[in-house]
């Protein structure tokens, strides 16, 4: 950013001279913070896209979408996240955490969603940390063996908690296409997750708010499982088996059924 004030115009008093140097420091900090905010915003958008993409798993071929999501996240790591790591290199990350935590949380949400689809479990912090660690980096400014983006536990936990909403969407959407297993699995997982979080004493209003949202999501999934049970109670056993096995046929084709 070029300054319109020509430096020759500035009176050469000690005060003005020190403020000139303060300006340099402040600008450096603000510019870095601004760059991080922009990176964070792009990361947020791209992470949301990955989540949207993964929701198509209820409709389309699952493994292909997972592969695509893997690729998208990997390219996000190698581009935007590597830039974040470079920006943070040598800094006290807590000075800039506010600038990139939103992107970080949304990224954790996307990664954990993908991980759940693969492993039906919570993504470990170590995996996220590894993904955000870069080796043998050689940028113009920095040449170093290893740089990484710090992932504070609280921000990780905040991102994870958002996973609840996405799993809830997945559970309800699954029922819509006749998949009755996924909702039950998600219900059990979300209960364990909620119990774990309830015991986690990190006094943080954001956490409390998100915990409330998580509880609502869990409640919606429980109601969905309840409905499944109730509905299942009426179906003739053999029909139910047919239904479950034909998960991928999304539409109710009346003609086919007539056969």
């Amino acid at each position, binding site marked *: 950013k070029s300054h319109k004030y020509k430096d020759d115009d500035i009176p050469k008093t000690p005060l003005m001279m020190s403020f000139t140097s303060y300006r340099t420091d402040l600008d450096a900090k603000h510019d870095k913070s601004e760059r991080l905010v922009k990176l964070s915003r792009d990361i947020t958008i791209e992470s949301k896209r990955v989540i949207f993409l993964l929701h198509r798993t209820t409709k389309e071929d699952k493994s292909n979408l997972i592969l695509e999501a893997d690729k998208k996240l990997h390219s996000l790591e190698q581009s935007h996240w590597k830039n974040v790591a470079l920006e943070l290199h040598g800094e006290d990350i807590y000075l800039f955490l506010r600038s990139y935590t939103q992107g970080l949380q949304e990224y954790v949400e996307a990664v954990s969603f993908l991980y759940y689809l693969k492993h039906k479990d919570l993504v470990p912090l170590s995996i996220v940390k590894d993904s955000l660690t870069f080796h043998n980096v050689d940028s113009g400014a920095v040449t170093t063996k290893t740089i990484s983006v710090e992932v504070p536990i609280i921000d990780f936990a905040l991102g994870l908690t958002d996973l609840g909403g996405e799993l809830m969407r997945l559970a*309800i959407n699954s*029922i819509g*296409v*006749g998949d009755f297993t996924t909702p039950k699995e998600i219900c059990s997982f979300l209960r364990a997750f909620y119990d774990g979080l309830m015991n986690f004493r990190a006094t943080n209003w954001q956490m409390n708010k998100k915990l409330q949202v998580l509880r609502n999501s869990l409640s919606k999934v429980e109601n969905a499982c309840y409905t499944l049970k109730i*509905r299942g109670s009426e179906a003739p056993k053999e029909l*139910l088996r047919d239904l479950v096995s034909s998960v991928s046929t999304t539409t109710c084709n009346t003609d086919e059924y*007539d056969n």
Partner: protein
Amino acid sequence: MSYQIPQMFSSFQDVIDQEQIIRESVKSSVQNLEQTSRTILALIQTIHQENGVKTAKEVAQKAREMFTTVRKYYEELASKIPSEQYYKYHDHWRFVTQRICFLAAFTTFIQDGRLISKSEVAEMLNVKSERTKDSFHLDLEDYLMGVLQMASELSRFAVNSVTAGDYETPCKISNFMSELDGGFRLLNLKNDSLRKKFDGLKYDIRKVEEVVYDIRIRNLSTKK
């Protein structure tokens, strides 16, 4: 110099008064639109009644005819807004336009079993589909909100179709809503009112799926 300032400020007052007049006039057109949309809605509601399903197409046709009045008021409204000020006053007609989009979409689904396109809605409302310099257009988000309102109404219609003994309509609705869901999933929505409304869609879909499920496990669709 002394004489310049008073003249200058008198002309400013004219501008301020002018804007106030437009605002009042816009409100009155919007009230007419609201009244008309309420009437069409009341008409459409009758298809949920006991014999409603049978008369659905007829009702839809009547509803479509009532769009003549809608068109008239949009024309009136459009004539009041210089095109470059559309967004200065947009909040006034945002809500009613969403409702009218819903009515247009619902009517079209009943008649043709398909999603009305944005340009078709625009035509029904007698406004432009895309923003152009000299005209009153249909805002994209208003159209999408209207479409989501229709989805909610369709899930109710699926339930009542069964009560009326019609087991085919729910399946058609189910297919249609599934496709609609696929369409919305292509959009990268922000966390705004549209996203929130879209989040509700999945419950509507689930409800319809449950209806279809109930039909299938009882072999009712073959009974017709």
